Structures are given as C-alpha cells and as structure tokens.
C-alpha cells in the first residue's frame, strides 16, 4: 500500500524522522510539518540523510510551517515539494493511509 508518513518534530531534537525513514517502503511519501520542516533545509547536519531518502520516497514540506519559521523556499532541498494545507489533504486522499510519527 502507499502510505503518507507525517513527521512533525525537529530532526535535531527528536529521533522521529530517522525512525520514519528507516521504516518507509518504496513508493511512500513523507510530509514534514510543524517543527518537522527544519529537516527540509539545506546545509544542515541531517541534509545527507534527507537527500538519501529522496531516492526512495517523495518528500513534502508544509509551506505555512516553513513561512512561520522564516525559512525561505530557496533554502529547501531540491526535490522536496512545498504544499499548503489543501495539498496536505490531497496527499492524505491520494495515499492509502496516513501514518503519524509522533
């Protein structure tokens, strides 16, 4: 099945992104939201981890959360798509289920 995984915690504070990426199946998607969007930035200590994930899964970041945190889209890792809440709903509908990594 195709799953939308959601990660809402900073990869510098919690291990939930790492745990998620170790359990995603090919064809899955990962949506970064809330403090999870920090993982979408370039030049961070987790950039390599996120870039590797892009080989297997699609990665999305929630635009409103990027904007709130002062993160410009030009700082987002190429290959990560920015979506709004309507896009989040679309992703939830397009995939067979949503799995939250709290």
């Amino acid at each position, binding site marked *: *099945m195709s799953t939308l995984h959601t990660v809402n915690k900073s990869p510098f504070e919690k291990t939930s992104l790492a745990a998620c990426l170790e359990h*995603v199946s090919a064809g*899955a998607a990962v949506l970064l939201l809330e403090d999870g969007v920090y993982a979408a930035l370039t030049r961070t200590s987790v950039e390599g981890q996120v870039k590797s994930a892009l080989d297997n899964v699609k990665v999305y970041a929630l635009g409103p959360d990027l904007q709130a945190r002062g993160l410009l889209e030009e700082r987002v890792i190429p290959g990560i798509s920015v979506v709004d809440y309507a896009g989040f709903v679309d992703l939830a509908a397009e995939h067979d*289920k949503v*799995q939250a990594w709290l």
Partner: protein
Amino acid sequence: MSETIKNFLYLNRKAPYGTIYAWESLEVVLIGAAFDQDVSLAFVDDGVFQLTKNQHTSAVGMKNFSPTYAALGDYEVKKVFVEKESLEERGLSLDDLQHLTWEDEDEDWAEKDSIHLVTRAEMAAIMDGADVVFSF
C-alpha cells in the same frame, strides 16, 4: 459484522510512565478489541520498554498498567510485533520482556506466544500492510 474487516495497527513508540501515551494507547486497544477488526500491535523504538518485566510503580505513585498486556490474549489480541533492532539498541532481549500468550481455540486451547520478534525490514512491511495506523 457485515462490513469489511480492516487491518488495524497500533503503533507504540514511546516509553511508559514518562508520558501517558503508552497507557492510553492500551485503553484504545482494549476497547477496540470489541469491534472485531484484524488487530496488530507494533512496539518500535522506545515502545519496546512498555513490555519490560518487573515494573514496580509504587515509589512513583503511578498505576502499574503493565499486567494489562498479559490480558491482551483474552481480548483476542494475538499479534504483537516487537522490533529486534529497537531491542538491541536499548540493550534488551526478549528475555527482558513479559511472556505474552493466547489460547488457540482451534487447537484445544493450546497456549501460544503472542510476541513475534521481527526485523526492522519486516516491521516496515507490517506497517505497509496496515489499513489504519493508530499513533500515540
């Protein structure tokens, strides 16, 4: 039930007592057992700590809910998946966990193990196969 049976996965990734998620998650499992769905429990990351033996909570003044896991078999919850890598990273083995069983009606009530030790790759496949994931 006339409806399609769904494959429910309860995803337990948090340690007990530090937060209430483990306990309130177990409450959902017990209530949910009455709904005749296909239920699996996954213990991953710090969730594996929920199943440790010898929990004694009197000094922290909290209810010890760990005996409730042993009752899962009575609720027809038989599929308890524990991730091997999560155990190893935490210095644990199956011997450190409770021994959970269920009785198989079809085999003269033979007692069978509920806990299945699975690799991370197998756990990923279990997650992939679920219809609904409850996260706490």
